[in-house]
């Protein structure tokens, strides 16, 4: 390597290394070290796994942890099931102008903040809300119906909020599937379902995987939707982190919570990549 080139490499590496080390790697190591610290007295600390044993032995924490994971998985599956037919329609059925308009319409809601979207669902679902009013007007309900502050409301919000991150990768991968391949499938005697199973889904796999990973991550790490739509008893893991850090000021335990969330999400992302034979570079990059 010539000297000039070497200088260029160093100059370009510096910002990358500064960014990754100072804002990603060292902070996470620090977070991990903090989670291993146990307060034994005023300004006296010991190193140990006490924070983790607290989490593992306290049923409320474990229930919340498992619940957050299960509901995030469910939200991911629901988002995929709802988004797939729509993405297929945009990529394969719609033609010309209609197609770009439909695709753009999918993107529009996500140009506004998650807070606004969640606020919209609150207006729709609450006791004095639009859906409750419609039901009463139609004579389907005798009095106001409260649809907010339950798990179904959280699910509606989660699916809505992450929809874009499923639709975009699905449309992109389905788009690259040549119509001729589907026609060939029919020529060879395939039926609708068998073509979907043997041709369309395998081809769309990278999109399905990357969409699912992102949706899962967003649901798991969501704070706003469970808090606003789920009300007081929503029990989401991020709320525990928030309350330990900001309300109780017990950073050691909060750091342990944060690390458990990180481990859970990394494990599931890794498992999904492994099961489907994809890599992070291929699905994200």
């Amino acid at each position, binding site marked *: 390597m010539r000297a000039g080139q070497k200088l260029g490499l160093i100059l370009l590496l510096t910002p990358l290394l500064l960014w990754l080390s100072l804002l990603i790697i060292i902070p996470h190591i620090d977070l991990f070290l903090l989670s291993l610290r146990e307060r034994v007295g005023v300004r006296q600390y010991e190193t140990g796994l006490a924070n983790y044993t607290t989490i593992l032995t306290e049923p409320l924490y474990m229930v919340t942890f498992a619940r957050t994971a299960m509901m995030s998985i469910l939200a991911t599956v629901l988002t995929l099931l709802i988004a797939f037919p729509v993405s297929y329609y945009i990529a394969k059925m719609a033609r010309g102008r209609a197609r770009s308009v439909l695709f753009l319409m999918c993107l529009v809601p996500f140009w506004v903040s998650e807070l606004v979207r969640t606020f919209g669902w609150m207006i729709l679902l609450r006791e004095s809300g639009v859906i409750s009013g419609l039901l009463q007007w139609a004579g389907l309900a005798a009095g106001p119906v409260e649809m907010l502050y339950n798990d179904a409301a959280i699910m509606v919000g989660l699916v809505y909020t992450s929809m874009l991150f499923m639709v975009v990768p699905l449309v992109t991968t389905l788009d690259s599937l040549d*119509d001729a391949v589907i026609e060939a499938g029919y020529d060879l005697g395939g039926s609708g379902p068998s073509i979907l199973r043997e041709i369309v889904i395998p081809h769309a796999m990278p999109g399905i995987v990357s969409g699912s990973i992102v949706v899962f991550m967003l649901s798991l790490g969501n704070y706003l939707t469970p808090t606003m739509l789920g009300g007081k008893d929503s029990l989401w893991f991020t709320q525990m982190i928030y309350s330990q850090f900001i309300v109780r000021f017990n950073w050691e335990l909060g750091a342990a919570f944060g690390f458990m969330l990180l481990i859970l*999400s990394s494990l599931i992302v890794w498992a999904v990549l492994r099961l489907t034979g994809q890599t992070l570079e291929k699905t994200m990059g």
Partner: protein
Amino acid sequence: MIPTIPQNPLIRLVYGAYVALFFVYLALPLTVVAVFAFNDSQFPSLPWEGFTLSWFFGSERPMIGVFHEDPILRAIGTSVIIGLAVSALSVAVGTTNAFLFNRYQFRGRGFLYVLMLLPLVIPGIVLGISILVFSSSLANAAWDAAEIDIQALRPGLLLVILGQFSFVTTIATLVIAARLQKFDRTLEEAALNLGASHLTAVRTITLPYLAPAMIGAFVVSFLMSFENFNTTLMLVGSDSPLTIAMFDRLKLGSTPLLNAVSLLLMLGSSLLALVMIAFQRKS
């Protein structure tokens, strides 16, 4: 099923209806937010009390409109400052990253690339607390060593900017790298043959070619920063950006003022989106 293959018309109809229903579902929450901004009532809910513009222009209690509500205006200002800083930083680092991964083969390149993607799969709230913990460690160390109180390392504007920058950069890198990949390097070689130096060639040939992607990355970064909630929530100090200020109000109970702010946000971001699309089409 594709259009060239004949299909049962009933299935087609059901499929079309499903897609239509999906778009109703997408539009519904935003529509109600927008409509109730004009409700002449203290609450953004039924019954409909008549049309008013007071939630935008009103200047007297109980209906103070957005344009007379100082805390909200200040929060918008804070968000804009944070957004501009985050986008400028992210586009700068994103551009150097794109060049690095596109032009150089070096040991550890693959590893660094995966590392570069990691911020996308770290939950935002964890990113927030890790930066909070690390900056507090630094601040405490500075205090213990020399009794210097570094305010900048306590929750506030700088930490919010760094926190958002930490993951927005990945997006900016991917957007810019995608366009750099399509660049025809013989153009740069031609410039070199004609006597230009390396830097001149990059400055006059490559960077103008990259400009649309850099502007696109800037707009996307700005929107991501403006919308960000999770990371910001953990790092925010006394000067809250808009999403946090709105969240605090929403917790206390909502008035159509929030609808009015939301409607303005929708208009603002659609405008930005249109500008970006127009710009991309032109280039």
